């Protein structure tokens, strides 16, 4: 079975080929490169599934395939050489993620046929090429076997995101949004790269897995109580872990680097679905999961992750409440949901985090594609206040979208409920010991309410009530290529939860937590990259409110209650024939919420109010002072020249006089030195 792994590189290479094909021949091809993309991603999907099966059959794959650079570098812990390589690591986590990514990519490619091609877009080859490049980078990132390789493809997906957000480059807003997206994430990546460099310089390796992985090295360093770059080993690990976290926060749009994601909605909705909901944004969280062992070594780092996650979850949810643009709502919900995943990982809920990552990938992709469908229906109108009543006109869209919404809101039995609930549960049991985690838990819990509210506000405004515009009266019709992906994802949104019915398992004492076993390497696993292995590293105490089962019930109950009440409120307010905005009820909070807590303002201010004036000042300084000195030298010498040549008066008698004077001067000097006058 393991020989299938020899095809592992192809998973990423197919889309790369598609990229080249679409870029070069795209404009001559029937579907402008779409077919190449579909075939490639299809192939990747098939191979990924094969990998999944292979792993299920107990195999794992960890090979170094290509040597990028080797050299001598005395690392802090004494290793004196280092290799930077490209390699593939396929373990349960990677295999799972491969399937998710290739599946979504495949579906999005198909969807694009209806969304882009049918709409007669120009520049389709560019579009499909970018998609192909993205899929390639993302898949390569997923099964990267070392941190540097991960970083490199982490950057590349950023590039693709830039290109795709700016797809409609003839507008003013899209390029600006693209720039912002790249810059903000780049700011995070700065810390990431610093972290990579630091880890490489510290441990002389950047491998994720194996005995010579930096995780193992860090562990032993902590055990030996080494001093690394003048810090205690654990402190240093924390520092480097947090540096890497910078990249995570940037990519996964966590506070305070979340501001780019809403703007990123300037891109085609398909792109939003693939990149800015399901996969690229997940890269950050995935990275944390990938090197979870490293974070597990540092309680501080974990606590920070958890808190940031919890805070972001609430923070973003509140902003989603007041948005009128359907994609904006989804954007903020995405931020919020990734907050949950961070929280889950932060509290050591490795399985929960990954679980939610998977579910979210499905239902958020679904929701975005659904939104895309709605936008097609609405002749590219995105304001929910202009929609309404689409329920009957586009049933498939409606029901799939509803499935996604229920999952997002966390309504049992939809997938979102299970994963979110598990996260909250994990947070709770830790929180009972750690107050800061408890705070994070509280915020996340509160966010559940808002999630339910904005989700169903969106649903009701879009699909229920009376049509509020002639576009809504007679919607544009949509083809199979749009419907099919929606159905597939809709089903997944409904059933994906089965993968890990933890509460049920705990209550009914039956062993149905497949995902947990999966990630715990019961089928196949790489040494040290298993849930239980991480568990040993974790330093968290857990506590229960009167027994485990009770705690489970309480946790699930509370979150469900909140979700329902949020949804109920939305139903109360908006599920009416003629819904009206209720924002004024928010009073003072409204302005703050609508302007997103002035996050963009201060970041823009940092860029335009601080940096640019600084740059201009530097430029003035350069022009006047530094260059001024240079020029003044020449000016001075030319001036002195024009003065000096005046002694050549043209009067020969002056010459004689000057000559004699000069001679006497020389005489005096020599005479003085030679002492002739003494």
């Amino acid at each position, binding site marked *: 079975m393991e020989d299938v792994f020899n095809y592992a590189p192809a998973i990423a290479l197919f889309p790369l080929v598609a990229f080249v094909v679409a870029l070069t021949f795209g404009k001559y091809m029937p579907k402008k490169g779409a077919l190449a993309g579909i075939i490639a991603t299809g192939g990747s999907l098939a191979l990924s599934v094969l990998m999944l099966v292979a792993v299920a059959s107990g195999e794992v794959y960890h090979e170094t395939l290509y040597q990028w650079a080797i050299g001598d570098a005395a690392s802090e812990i004494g290793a004196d050489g280092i290799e930077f390589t490209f390699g593939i690591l396929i373990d349960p986590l990677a295999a799972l993620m491969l399937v998710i990514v290739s599946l979504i990519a495949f579906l999005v490619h198909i969807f694009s046929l209806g969304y882009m091609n049918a709409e007669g877009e120009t520049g389709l080859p560019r579009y499909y090429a970018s998609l192909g490049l993205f899929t390639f980078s993302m898949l390569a990132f997923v099964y990267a076997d070392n941190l540097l390789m991960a970083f490199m493809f982490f950057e590349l997906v950023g590039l693709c995101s830039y290109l795709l957000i700016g797809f409609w480059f003839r507008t003013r807003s899209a390029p600006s949004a693209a720039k912002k997206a790249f810059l903000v994430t780049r700011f995070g990546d700065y810390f990431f790269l610093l972290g990579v460099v630091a880890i490489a310089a510290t441990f002389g390796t950047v491998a994720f897995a194996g005995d010579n992985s930096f995780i193992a090295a860090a562990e032993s360093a902590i055990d030996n109580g080494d001093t690394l770059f003048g810090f205690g080993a654990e402190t240093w690990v924390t520092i480097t872990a947090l540096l890497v976290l910078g990249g995570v926060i940037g990519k996964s749009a966590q506070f305070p680097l979340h501001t780019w994601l809403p703007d990123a909605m300037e891109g085609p909705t398909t792109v939003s679905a693939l990149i800015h909901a399901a996969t690229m944004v997940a890269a950050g969280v995935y990275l944390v999961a990938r090197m979870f062992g490293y974070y597990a070594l540092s309680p501080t780092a974990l606590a920070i992750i958890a808190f940031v996650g919890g805070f972001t979850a609430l923070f973003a949810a509140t902003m989603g409440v007041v948005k009128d643009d359907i994609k904006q709502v989804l954007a903020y919900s995405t931020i919020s949901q990734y907050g949950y995943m961070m929280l889950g990982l932060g509290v050591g809920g490795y399985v929960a985090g990954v679980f939610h990552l998977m579910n979210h990938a499905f239902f958020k992709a679904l929701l975005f594609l659904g939104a895309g469908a709605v936008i097609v229906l609405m002749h590219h109108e995105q304001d929910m206040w202009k929609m309404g009543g689409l329920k009957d006109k586009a049933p498939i869209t409606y029901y799939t979208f509803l499935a996604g919404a229920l999952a997002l809101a966390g309504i049992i039995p939809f997938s979102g409920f299970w994963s979110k609930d598990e996260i909250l549960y994990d947070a709770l049991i830790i929180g009972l010991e750690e107050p800061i985690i408890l705070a994070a838990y509280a915020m996340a819990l509160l966010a559940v309410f808002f999630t339910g509210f904005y989700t169903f506000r969106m649903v009701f405004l879009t699909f229920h009530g009376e049509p509020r515009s002639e576009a809504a009266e007679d919607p544009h019709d949509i083809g199979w290529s749009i419907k099919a992906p929606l159905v597939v994802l809709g089903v997944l949104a409904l059933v994906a939860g089965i993968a890990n019915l933890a509460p049920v398992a705990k209550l009914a004492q039956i062993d149905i937590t497949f995902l947990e076993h999966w990630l715990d390497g019961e089928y196949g696993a790489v040494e040290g990259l298993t849930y239980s292995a991480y568990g040993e590293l974790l330093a968290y105490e857990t506590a229960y409110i009167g027994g485990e089962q009770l705690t489970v019930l309480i946790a699930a109950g509370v979150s469900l209650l909140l979700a329902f009440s949020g949804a109920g409120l939305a139903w109360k307010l908006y599920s009416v024939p003629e819904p009206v905005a209720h924002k004024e009820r928010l009073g003072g909070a409204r302005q703050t919420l609508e302007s997103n807590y002035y996050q963009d303002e201060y970041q823009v201010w940092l860029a335009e109010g601080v940096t640019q004036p600084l740059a201009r000042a530097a430029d003035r300084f350069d022009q006047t002072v530094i260059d001024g000195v240079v020029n003044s030298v*020449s000016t001075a*010498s*030319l001036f*002195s*020249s*024009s003065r*000096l*040549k005046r002694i*050549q008066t*043209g009067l*020969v008698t002056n*010459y*004689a006089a*000057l*000559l004699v*004077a*000069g*001679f006497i*001067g*020389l*005489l005096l*000097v*020599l*005479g003085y*030195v*030679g*002492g*002739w006058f003494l």
Partner: protein
Amino acid sequence: MALLELPAWTALAPALLLALTAMALFIIDSIAPDSRNSGLLAGTTAAGSIVSLGVAVWYLLAGVGTPTVDGGRGVIDVLGNQFVVDQLALFFMVIVAVVTALVAVASYDYMEDHTYQAEYYSLVLLAATGMSFMAAANSLVTIFIALELASLPSYALVSILKDNRGSVEAGLKYFLIGALSSAIFVYGISLVYGATGHLQLENIAAVIEAGEVASDGGHEIADVGGLLGLGILMLIGGFAFKTASVPFHFWAPEAYEGAPAPISAFLSSASKAAGFVIAFRVFTEAFPVAETASAIGVDWALAFIILAIVTMTLGNFAAATQNNVKRMLAYSSIGHAGYALIGLAGISAGGGELVMGAAMMHLFVYGFMNTGAFLFVALAEYWGVGRTFEDYNGLGRRAPVACFALAIFMFSLAGIPPLGGFWSKYFLFTGALEAGLLVVAAALVINSALSLYYYSRLVKAVWIEEPAVERETLSQPVGLYAAIVVAAVMTLALLPLFGPVADTAVDAATAMLA
């Protein structure tokens, strides 16, 4: 090489040949007084100087002057040591002959329709003879005579354009300053004679080394140190005049600007070189550093250090903002005099032969690049395009070859590779450093930066600037072009082929300082 068979006086052949050619010209002129056959005259002059050049080179190759221990033929002295022919002498005879030849060829076109051609060429040759003799003169008497023999025709040559106010003014100023300087010079000679009782260089040296004057009951030389010092200083004045060094340079800008361009080339290259050769000879032979210093209480090199710095600075700074190309070149040649003076300034220190050798190389390369530059001005005057930088604008379009040569001369003067000027300038820099003349070296850096400005300014004018006036195609006078091209080719070729020059120069210097 049947040289030994020749009588000793033939060692002076390079100089004598020049004199003979002058005579020949007189004969030609007296046969056909009002002939304008400039071809014949210029040809004769060129031929004579080329023969003289050939002989000088032949002697050098034959090993005249190289110490017999090195398989050479040793130094040959003539007329009871009034003249000596050694490598130094031959080296400078070569320079003089080269410049003369170039000037003669160039003058063929420049003086084409000039009345007094025979006079012109014979004067050139007489001056050249004087300079050639200066190279060999070995006694203050012969030095003074040779120097005057070089000067007097020069005065006449500068003012040979009788109806050209500039030429006459130049001649006048040159002459007046010259007369004054030679008076000072000869007075200096008298004082040295008074102090030592000798006019022949090595005898003077002998007295100074002995530390006492034998002829009169033997009193200490130090007693007359002031007298000797003043005399030496006045001698320096004489050389400074000939080499156009501050403060005796005042004649140079006007003389070079006013004189016919070939003459400017002649004076600024050959005459300057001649001035330096006597300075080298006198100060290496007659006034051995240490003893003289003990006698007059001061190292005379100090005077040259001061002169070098002041001269190069004044020359370059004054040149930087000139508008008249010829005048700019005049000042630049003052600046180069300053560079060459480093050779004398550094003699006293260890490794003096390197400095002096470098200075000699510089004068050699200078003989090509500076002559070439002035000849280009001659060409411009021949075309009648005007005298200022603006007038030169865009010449590169019309006369690419000449302007290419000009670029070569300018960059070579600026000491930028891949051109001959690079070696000599950087060897001077190197020598100055080894001699420990850090101040001088620093001055050299500053000045060469400034010189870059005005040299490139001329290149800019001919190659970069747009022509101010649209001019029809320019004629291509054979002689001028030939001279310029030859000079340019030599300047270029001296980069790879600099070895022999460097060897000869350093050997000569070593021999003098030995």
